């Protein structure tokens, strides 16, 4: 066992989790501050040694390559920001912070494994390790009817999705006789596209579709997002999606490059349906969390196009898009959390005249939404530019046209929010400015900076993503 070193980031995070658990056991409630500090330090250490440890494989199951490193960085950043989101979670929601952090970190750990897994078992474990904590976190406030209901729905559908994915795995295993993704390729070439293989692939696609929240496997998203505590919604929308897409890239790119014609065609259709449905359904929403949920479905529709254009350009633009999406979405949710803290409401009416009450928050929300809509010169525009260009160069003209039209359509509801913030009169009782705690301020500053920087000067991240993907596709 020479190269344990490669597992170091995961190990550190795992020990952080246990440490937080122990501290939570022995500490009295007054020391709760340590829990947050501890998890922050743990995450930071993980990030650091993520970039120290060399690339390489641990056994046949675990590969720490550039792609994994990129995705892990995104996820850990999201984790960091979400921990800051929920700095005084127990005060706001009146539920214990220790378990909350443990669950959150475990979910992050699961995604780390997803990002590195090259073997079905590990991927499956990683998937479940990602999902269960998220389910529990969604239903973390069972006293709140919405939270309970969202959690239950999420649980059942997640179990179903995972089971279907697993069933697909088992069929593929029965056909190819191996759980190694690389080893699948020759085996499947030898067997050819037998019905067994096709059914397996089909079930896997369905499972992935669930994780990426593609129509028609998306039904859980709005309810789970609305039910979950807002910080968790943010984590779901960013890290959860990232997990789904890295899982898809790992499985399909490593295991099924031969069947690309099968799944890229399916994904093209799913992408089209998903973006249309997400955008249309978002228009009549008046609950910010729900609106953002549908917008995230639409975003997933865009991102999947990168899988359709299954080439260096496509995959690298997925990575870039995920990064831009992280900043924009977390900024938006940061404002939502801030407003929720002050007015206990996530309805659109709580945002009326926000520009007059607290202009900074209003400006950040404006930037975030415009970036999500893909307005230059913000991060979202650059991301859409690369993504659409990639798909265009792969010859899916109709898909690009549809995506552009959808982006225009999405402006409809983003502008609705902006209008509420800037044009409409604040409610009589909501005139005092929204107070923003320090932790939240840090998140907002970081994300806003990200939105602007990625939009104005995207080349470093783009080049990084490109070289990572090149290495990934040509081992």
């Amino acid at each position: 066992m020479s190269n344990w070193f490669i597992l170091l980031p995961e190990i550190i995070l795992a020990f952080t989790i246990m440490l937080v658990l122990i501290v939570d056991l022995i500490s009295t409630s007054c020391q709760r501050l340590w829990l947050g500090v501890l998890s922050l330090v743990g995450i930071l250490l993980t990030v650091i040694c993520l970039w120290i440890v060399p690339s390489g494989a641990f056994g046949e199951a675990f590969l720490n390559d550039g792609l994994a490193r990129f995705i892990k960085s995104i996820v850990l950043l999201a984790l960091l920001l979400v921990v800051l989101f929920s700095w005084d979670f127990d005060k706001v929601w009146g539920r214990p912070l220790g378990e909350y952090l443990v669950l959150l970190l475990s979910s992050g750990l699961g995604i780390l494994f997803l990002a590195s897994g090259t073997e079905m078992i590990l991927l499956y474990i990683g998937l479940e390790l990602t999902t269960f904590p998220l389910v529990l976190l969604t239903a973390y406030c069972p006293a709140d009817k919405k939270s309970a209901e969202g959690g239950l729905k999420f649980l059942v559908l997640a179990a179903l999705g995972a089971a279907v994915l697993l069933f697909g795995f088992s069929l593929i295993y029965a056909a190819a006789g191996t759980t190694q993704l690389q080893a699948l390729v020759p085996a499947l070439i030898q067997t050819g596209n037998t019905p067994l293989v096709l059914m397996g692939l089909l079930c896997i696609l369905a499972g992935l579709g669930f994780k990426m929240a593609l129509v028609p496997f998306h039904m859980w998203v709005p309810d789970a997002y609305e039910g979950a505590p807002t910080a968790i919604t943010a984590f779901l929308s960013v890290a959860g999606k990232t997990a789904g897409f890295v899982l898809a890239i790992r499985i399909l790119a490593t295991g099924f490059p031969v069947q690309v014609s099968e799944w890229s065609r399916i994904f093209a259709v799913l992408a089209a349906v998903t973006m249309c449905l997400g955008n249309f359904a978002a228009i009549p929403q008046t609950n910010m969390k729900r609106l953002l949920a549908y917008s995230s479905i639409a975003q997933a529709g865009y991102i999947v196009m990168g899988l359709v254009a299954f080439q260096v350009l496509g995959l690298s633009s997925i990575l870039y898009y995920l990064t831009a999406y992280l900043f924009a979405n977390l900024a938006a949710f940061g404002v939502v959390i801030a407003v929720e803290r002050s007015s206990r409401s996530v309805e659109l009416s709580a945002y009326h005249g926000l520009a007059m009450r607290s202009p900074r928050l209003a400006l950040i929300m404006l930037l975030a939404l415009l970036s999500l809509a893909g307005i230059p010169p913000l991060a979202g525009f650059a991301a859409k530019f690369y993504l659409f260009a990639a798909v265009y160069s792969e010859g899916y003209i109709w898909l690009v046209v549809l995506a552009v039209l959808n982006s225009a359509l999405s402006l409809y509801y983003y502008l609705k929010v902006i209008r509420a913030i800037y044009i409409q009169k604040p409610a009589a009782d909501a005139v005092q400015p929204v107070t923003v705690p320090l932790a939240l301020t840090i998140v907002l500053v970081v994300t806003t900076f990200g939105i602007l920087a990625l939009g104005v000067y995207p080349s470093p991240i783009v080049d990084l993503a490109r070289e990572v993907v090149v290495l990934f596709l040509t081992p």
Partner: protein
Amino acid sequence: MEQIGSYTTIFIALGVGVFCLAAGIFVSWLVRPMNPTPLKMEPYECGEPAIGPARVKFRTSFYLFALVFVIFDVEVVFLFPWAVVFQDLGLFAFIEMVIFIFILLLGLAYAWRKGALRWR
């Protein structure tokens, strides 16, 4: 795998079966009238009034114990393969297993501390 191919029929049949099932449920869900009168809601349609609640209530504590038991019971599954080949694995695997069990114990301790094992 060519003998698989000849069984396509079965897979197709299954697919079709599932489809019919789904379609049936969907159609009935579409067309069925939905007016639950209290009489309809009676457990016995012969009109015999039901005495007492239909479902016997267990204390949720039972479930809690069941949960804890199930988890620790099943995790032990991992001990068997390890124990079988313990001789040739040597120290390293031993340490691994110790860590594994330590984590399990941590969980148990947590459940204990949080009062999941107290009979309420």
